[in-house]
């Protein structure tokens, strides 16, 4: 790990280290795959997020198809899945409907928005915007991506598991999430063993990654261990599948310990070759074990879901530690905390949220996973009966405890999913309004306020869950208060636009859409914040409308804007503005046509997560509106095509970008596009705040942070 140099000389030291360590022949593998460069890792997260965006989007189309025309065969796709025996009908079967919306939400939240916002822009922007050469812990940064990647793989792989993927909603409330949807005996210990071995195999993968960035002593003992592992693997391989079924707890634990032992041994002793060999052998053993186990053991989609997010939690925590350390320790000379751009502030505070909240999620997932495998009963009640069969682990648990734990993470997570977008949108609006941010410090305090309040509002998701009603009142009051900093931010954006010299680029349009849509998402939140009004709209489409206005209307437009804005810096080429505007206009209109009517459905009481609303008379009358929403959703899906064409096409054919195509003031625009390894050829020195646009002190309408002008740091104009 890179040592943390003193802040005042951070840039220079880090840069020298980079320059000295790396002669320019870095292997392809190390440069683009297991890279420790924050820019490459950022782009890796970007590609991961966009890939999952396509998967999650297609699932949304499937869900809307079913809701608009329940029971109508899905074109092509349905016939194909029926032919290969995955679906029982050509239309979306009920169990696959629940699975589809569960995976849509899980993928969109955990593998699109969080990687895009925190992973991509956190990685890419933080060091560039504070004038650092790289992250404080570059290797840990790589590890963050390489634990997000297997997590995503497991999530996608769960589609192919026995019984299909998780189908208990993205919240995975027990006791529903404790049910096995597939068939197979409920044999606790082998399943537990498989889980553990899965973890071990992921560790193997991480270890493979670690291998490329560390070097250690050679040893000969390791070859003996390799031989042992081969024998062990062969034994496992030649055994019949009954071996797995007949496994006793002791045996499974022993096997797990043996595999771990191999790993530890490989890590402590051994050279390059031996470690590669051993890693391959161990991965193969784990793969065989999992392959066999998954066929016969109840390792189902739900287990994969828990496991996937558990591993993703590592990624988040590793990233958060890194961002915080980088921002605190690696700012370039002159870059005080209150000279940082709001995007960096937002990412900094978001990282604190991640660091405090994610461990709680990890614990919850683990408890839920154990419950799912009937090992424990944290969330199952004393008299728990499913299909008239008493469950082996029923006893003493409390289902609502899970909701508390889950939302203790997931409510801050909602802010994790919006705060960075707020920061980036502030940057974009300031640049294209050619104006300083209106009330920079209040904006920072508002972010901090939202983050703090974000931790004491979680139970507003549970007003109707059966928890103590007085608790509901407490959380209603704190939830009402969180609207205040949100209002401050909105009005300050308006203030920023006021008196501006506004350029309507694709980036700016998306950023403005963020503001406009966030207003709707925020205001609809007030309805839910009121416990009494929430009685009627809880778990209806009103909630669906609200979350999509915040997460799509808000965050996704923010992400699109940020991609349009920073694409020249990331790839050194300009995106096509016309395609960008087509994408924006189509998305904006189709988005509103899709999600605004959902408010009306929700006020009518229409329940969410229904595969078919026509069965209930008071919901059936909304079917025409559901069809309208579905058509709009398809247009929204098609509207993303110009973006995909633009993203890929500009990478190849886009005009070369200059250093600072937008005439922006912050540090990332001071270096080449894309920045070289080590970011800055000369350590930047900052002289004033980040948003000095239209300053009267200079002739141009922008004053770069590195440009020294007498009195610029003291010039504060209040109107």
């Amino acid at each position, binding site marked *: 790990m890179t040592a943390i140099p003193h802040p005042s000389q951070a840039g220079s030291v880090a840069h020298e280290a980079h320059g000295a360590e790396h002669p320019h022949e870095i292997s392809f593998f190390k440069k683009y795959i297991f890279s420790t460069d924050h820019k490459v890792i950022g782009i890796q997260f970007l590609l991961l997020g966009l890939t999952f965006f396509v998967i999650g989007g297609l699932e949304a189309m499937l869900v809307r198809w079913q809701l608009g025309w329940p029971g109508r065969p899905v074109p092509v796709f349905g016939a194909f899945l029926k032919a290969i025996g995955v679906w029982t009908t050509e239309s979306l079967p009920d169990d696959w409907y629940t699975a589809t919306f569960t995976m849509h939400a899980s993928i969109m939240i955990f593998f699109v928005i969080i990687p895009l916002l925190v992973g991509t822009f956190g990685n890419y922007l933080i060091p560039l915007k504070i004038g650092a050469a790289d992250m404080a812990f570059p290797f840990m940064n790589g590890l963050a991506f390489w634990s997000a990647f297997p997590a995503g793989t497991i999530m996608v792989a769960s589609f192919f598991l026995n019984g299909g993927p998780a189908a208990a909603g993205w919240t995975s409330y027990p006791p529903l999430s404790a049910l096995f949807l597939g068939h197979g005996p409920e044999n606790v210990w082998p399943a537990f063993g498989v889980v553990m071995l899965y973890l071990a195999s992921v560790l193997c993968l991480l270890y493979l990654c670690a291998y490329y960035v560390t070097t250690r002593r050679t040893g000969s003992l390791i070859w003996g261990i390799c031989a042992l592992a081969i024998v062990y693997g062969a034994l496992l391989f030649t055994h019949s599948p009954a071996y797995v079924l007949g496994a006793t707890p002791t045996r499974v634990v022993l096997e797990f310990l043996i595999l771990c032992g191999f790993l530890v041994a490989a890590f402590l002793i051994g050279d390059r070759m031996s470690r590669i060999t051993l890693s391959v052998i161990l991965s193969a053993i784990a793969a065989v074990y999992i392959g066999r186990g998954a066929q016969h053991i109840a390792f189902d989609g739900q287990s994969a879901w828990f496991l996937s997010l558990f591993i993703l939690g590592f990624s988040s925590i590793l990233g958060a530690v890194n961002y915080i350390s980088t921002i605190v320790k690696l700012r370039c000379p002159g870059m005080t905390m209150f000279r940082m751009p709001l995007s960096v502030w937002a990412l900094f505070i978001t990282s604190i949220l991640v660091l405090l909240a994610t461990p709680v999620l990890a614990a919850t997932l683990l408890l839920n996973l154990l419950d799912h495998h009937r090992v424990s009963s944290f969330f199952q009640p004393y008299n728990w009966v499913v299909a008239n069969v008493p469950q082996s682990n029923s006893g003493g648990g409390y289902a609502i405890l899970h909701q508390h734990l889950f939302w203790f993470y997931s409510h801050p997570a909602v802010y994790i999913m919006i705060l960075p977008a707020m920061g980036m949108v502030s940057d974009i609006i300031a640049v294209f309004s050619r104006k300083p941010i209106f009330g920079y410090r209040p904006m920072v305090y508002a972010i901090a306020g939202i983050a703090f309040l974000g931790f004491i509002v979680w139970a507003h998701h549970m007003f109707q869950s059966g928890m103590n009603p007085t608790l509901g009142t407490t959380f209603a009051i704190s939830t009402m208060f969180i609207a205040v900093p949100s209002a401050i931010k909105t009005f300050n954006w308006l203030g920023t636009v006021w008196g501006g010299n506004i350029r309507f680029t694709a980036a700016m349009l998306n950023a403005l859409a963020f503001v406009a849509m966030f207003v709707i998402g925020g205001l609809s939140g007030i309805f839910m914040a009121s416990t009494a009004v929430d009685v009627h709209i809880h778990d209806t489409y009103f909630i669906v409308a609200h979350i999509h206005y915040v997460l799509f209307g808000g965050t996704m437009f923010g992400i699109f804007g940020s991609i349009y804005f920073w694409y020249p810096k990331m790839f050194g080429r300009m995106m096509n503005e016309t395609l960008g505007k087509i994408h924006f206009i189509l998305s904006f209109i189709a988005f509103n046509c899709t999600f605004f009517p959902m408010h009306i459905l929700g006020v009518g009481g229409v329940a969410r997560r229904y595969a078919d609303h026509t069965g*209930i008379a*008071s919901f059936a009358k909304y079917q025409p509106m559901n069809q309208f929403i579905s058509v709009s959703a398809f247009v929204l899906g098609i509207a993303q095509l110009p973006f995909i064409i633009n993203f890929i096409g500009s990478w190849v054919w886009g005009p070369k970008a200059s250093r600072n195509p937008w005439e922006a003031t912050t540090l990332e625009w001071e270096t080449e596009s894309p920045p070289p390894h080590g970011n800055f050829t000369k350590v930047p020195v900052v002289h004033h705040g980040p948003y000095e646009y239209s300053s009267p002190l200079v002739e141009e309408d922008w004053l770069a942070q590195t440009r020294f002008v007498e009195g610029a740091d003291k010039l504060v104009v209040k109107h």
Partner: protein
Amino acid sequence: MILSKPGTLSRVLRLPLIVAALLAPALAAPAFADVPPNLQWNKYRLPPDYSTHGAGMDSLYTLILWITMIVFIVVEVVLVYFLIKYRHRPGQQKARFSHGNTRLEMVWTLVPAVILVALALMTKRVWDNYRYSPLGDDPNRARFLVVGEQFKWHVVYAGPDGKLGKYLAFPKPTDPGYRTMPEAEALKAITNAIAPPNNTLGQDLSAEEAGKDDDYAPTAAARPIVLPVDRALEINLSAKDVLHDFFLPNFRVKLDAVPGMRGVINFKALPNGQSTQRMDIDQIPAWARIWVTYDTPGARLLGNPKIWQISDPKGTGALPSAWIATFQSLEDGARNRLRRRNIEMEAITPPMLSSEIESLRSDLRSAYGITQLTALMKPWELACEELCGAGHYTMRNDVFFVSKQEYEDFMNKVELSKRAPSTQPIKPAPVAAGDLQAASASR
């Protein structure tokens, strides 16, 4: 800046593109022919409320709607106005240089804060009136137990004593009666003991007298729930397997049914929420279900769950052919009669059906002299609003509100049917290995 000079393509295409984007949803719509041209969105509002506590919620909703609508319109109008007014014009060099205005920011911090605190306080009053309802102290309140199970609702009415027994006390393999058996056998035996028609809700018969007279129909899951209007109600909620949610949209009642917990809601329905209406038999629409009771001429009790039936008096033997029963509509009755004549369900045409409905009406009139019947003109629905599995959307139940007198009659004018669930383990049937696996699967 580069982009202050848009490219040729951008300039030429701008207007057509905007127009195309605006028209896109409209152009796409005809591809889906079953979207009706008139969506009639104006009829979609907050459903009417028929509870005593709901008015507070509705006025709070309306208040928040007005506040948010005003804020929304003001913010968006100001935003759009600024965007137009302060757009970049050729030759314009600089924007206004301003870092903010502390006083203005104080205003837009404090004003929302005050409004929101006021909303929070109003919310507390309405919420307490709902969840800590004074109706909970009404000694005359009617008690019910509603239990959710994948994917149906069970209802238990407190009997004449007005008290509910103890439910959801399922046996466990470690209980004295089962302890000696091998585990698989014990599970099978318990499954038998708690599967319909046995003690489905796990009523504890050993403990107390209160439950002895409950109207508890283990075989009749998903039977309609009958509640009195204008009387305090106490709904006890729980669930057997997973979370469910008890939602009556027209009565502003919603609460999760949580396994292992008992949720209580007290509320009172307004008299105009009453489902039943005495009507001339010719006026009753074909879809309306009929409230056949003990005093309907020609009605005989079918047994639990309190279904009365009017049959053909000329029918023979022990099974006179049924015409219509409680909770059946005239259309259901007509269909039954047609089907008894060996007409396939698919072969029934609308004219056939309407003529059969007419003949059912005239038969009722001629056979029993019935000129009026009580129709359930306002059928309410209970929907599950908490994801409970793949069949979540099928988990609906009929709810009928009847007058206080009708409810009294419904509860008391029937001798409770006999039922004898045993507290002793039922002798297990031979266990096939596959059965247990099938039973342990969730669905």
